């Protein structure tokens, strides 16, 4: 058993692990932090403002009032409808993802309050197979919509995802219309969706519920593109703009309503919830 050593004391730049920079090393400015330092700053680099990834549980803790979150549908697990096997069996990838994240799937849903405003939450976890959307993620999102409609509260979604989950094949593509229909049912019931898009929100999730929020909020520097920069570059050989697909570019082209730095996110979402609640 080795104790975690605070490398920031000895080195400004942490030594790379397996050739990759340490997850606590800022990819923008190279500053390195202890876990608790980063956590105290909501995983935002105090030096340069780079937004590090946030796990679903941390995100819920950052956004919601203490003790208000009650998880729902936590028992749902994916099976392997196609018997999918690439370099490894899908079932093995699922089991590993559950072990490393402590979550049953790439989305956590439940009821919560943000700045005393009740709401329904659907928060994605990128660490679970790249935050990919298969049947269980689609089902959880649909249930979150139904929960919001039943309770007459807004739904707040926080997305971080590579898109549809390839291992469930065409059934994953079917989660796009499924979540779209769920949002439309919520709208018919007079409900509200506030979509918070964190890095990255791409492909199948961007092309479904994440883009359908009444208000679309993005975190700074988040990649929000249907196709990622690498594929665009390889396919078209086009020279990509420096901010290709980023939140800032989307804002300039009119696809998001606001870019909100993480320290202001809770206040912003709380304010939106109040505005919508006051209008009811």
């Amino acid at each position, binding site marked *: 058993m080795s104790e975690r050593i605070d490398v920031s004391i000895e080195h400004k730049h942490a030594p790379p692990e397996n050739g990759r920079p340490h997850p606590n090393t800022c990819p923008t400015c190279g500053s390195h932090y202890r876990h608790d330092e980063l956590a105290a700053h909501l995983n935002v680099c105090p030096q340069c403002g780079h937004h590090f990834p946030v796990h679903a549980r941390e995100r819920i803790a950052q956004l919601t009032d203490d003790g208000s979150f009650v998880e729902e549908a936590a*028992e*749902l*697990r*994916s*099976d392997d*409808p*196609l018997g*999918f*096997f*690439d*370099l490894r069996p899908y079932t093995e990838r699922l089991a590993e993802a559950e072990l490393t994240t402590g979550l049953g799937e790439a989305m956590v849903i439940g009821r919560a309050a943000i700045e005393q405003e009740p709401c329904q939450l659907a928060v994605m976890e990128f660490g679970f197979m790249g935050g990919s959307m298969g*049947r*269980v993620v689609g*089902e959880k999102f*649909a249930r979150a919509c139904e929960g919001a409609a039943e309770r007459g509260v807004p739904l707040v979604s926080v997305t971080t995802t590579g898109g*549809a*989950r*390839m*291992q*469930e*094949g*065409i*059934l994953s*593509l*079917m989660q*796009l*219309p*499924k979540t*779209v*229909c*769920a*949002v*439309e*049912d919520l709208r018919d019931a007079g409900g509200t969706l506030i979509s918070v898009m964190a890095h990255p929100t791409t*492909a*199948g999730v*961007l*092309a*479904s*519920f*994440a*883009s*359908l929020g009444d208000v679309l909020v993005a975190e700074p520097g988040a990649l*929000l*593109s*249907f*196709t990622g920069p690498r*594929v*665009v570059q390889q*396919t*078209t050989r*086009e020279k990509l*703009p420096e901010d*290709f*697909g980023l939140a800032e*570019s*989307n804002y300039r*082209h*009119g*696809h998001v309503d606001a870019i909100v730095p993480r320290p202001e996110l809770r206040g912003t979402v709380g304010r939106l919830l109040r505005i919508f609640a006051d209008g009811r």
Partner: protein
Amino acid sequence: MAGEAEQLRLRSQLSRLRSLPLLRGAKLSGELERLQKQLDRITSEPSDEEIWRSVELARHPERPYTLDYVERLLDDWFELHGDHHHGDDAALVAGLGRFRGRTIVLVGNQKGRDVKERTRRNFGMAYPEGYGKAMRAMELAERHGFPLLSLVDIPGAYPGVTAEQHGQGGAIARSQALMSRLHVPVVTCVIGEGGSGGAIATALADRVLMQENAIYTVISPEGCAAILWRDAGEARKAAAAFKPDAGHCLELGVIDAIVPEPEPGAHTDHEGAARLLGDALQESLELLDGVPGDELRRQRRVRFRTIGAVPATR
């Protein structure tokens, strides 16, 4: 054992699906023999080679495209151009026409036949402007109570800088949202490649059909291979793993029926393929006749809410 239970479930699902849409198709199109062969194909697990054959046929350069079917199936076709906002996308066509006695609106992806047309139509890969045009046509259908037909044949949404700057993700999402709100009958047929988000953008329908040799995929086999195998050359393995052929899509409940093609594929007989597609579209429209708009829309949403139901809680 879980494996056996799963098999049982699939078998009962299969027999249920088999008894409904295929037999009805047989009655109408008189293609019993061919359908029997399809049934055999579904029950006997297709080999990796057969699945790859579907991929090749779906992409066959002589395969009929949307406008080939329009020419053979519709009278008084009037093509609509542009999203009336920003541009006209030749990769997606939309228009009005008469189909077997009724006025319909049709939207469809359109590939090109020769190099020049392929370039002009961007190999059938739509830009957000294309979905904009489709949405305009859908709204027209809704206003006038015309049924909507959509033919899907797209390798995938276009991976380009401008497409992203024009809001590709949002356009695909909004097109689906609009389809989920329509009060008119909507029938979709995948006639070639049903590639990913670009396909589902115009496929949120009451009845979803697929031609015998079409494919319907979450990502192109090459894309999947590049990500999971880290080698686009492993596309055959990827296709075999994610099973994009019509038989599997029917078995999974993603589509409602398979539309037969002339032997050995639609590319050899455009007239025959159009006749069989026309019969299937007509049959689907007749199934939806007389269903009130609110009910159509409710059932359409239920259809997509329940596809690929999640396994029971452990």
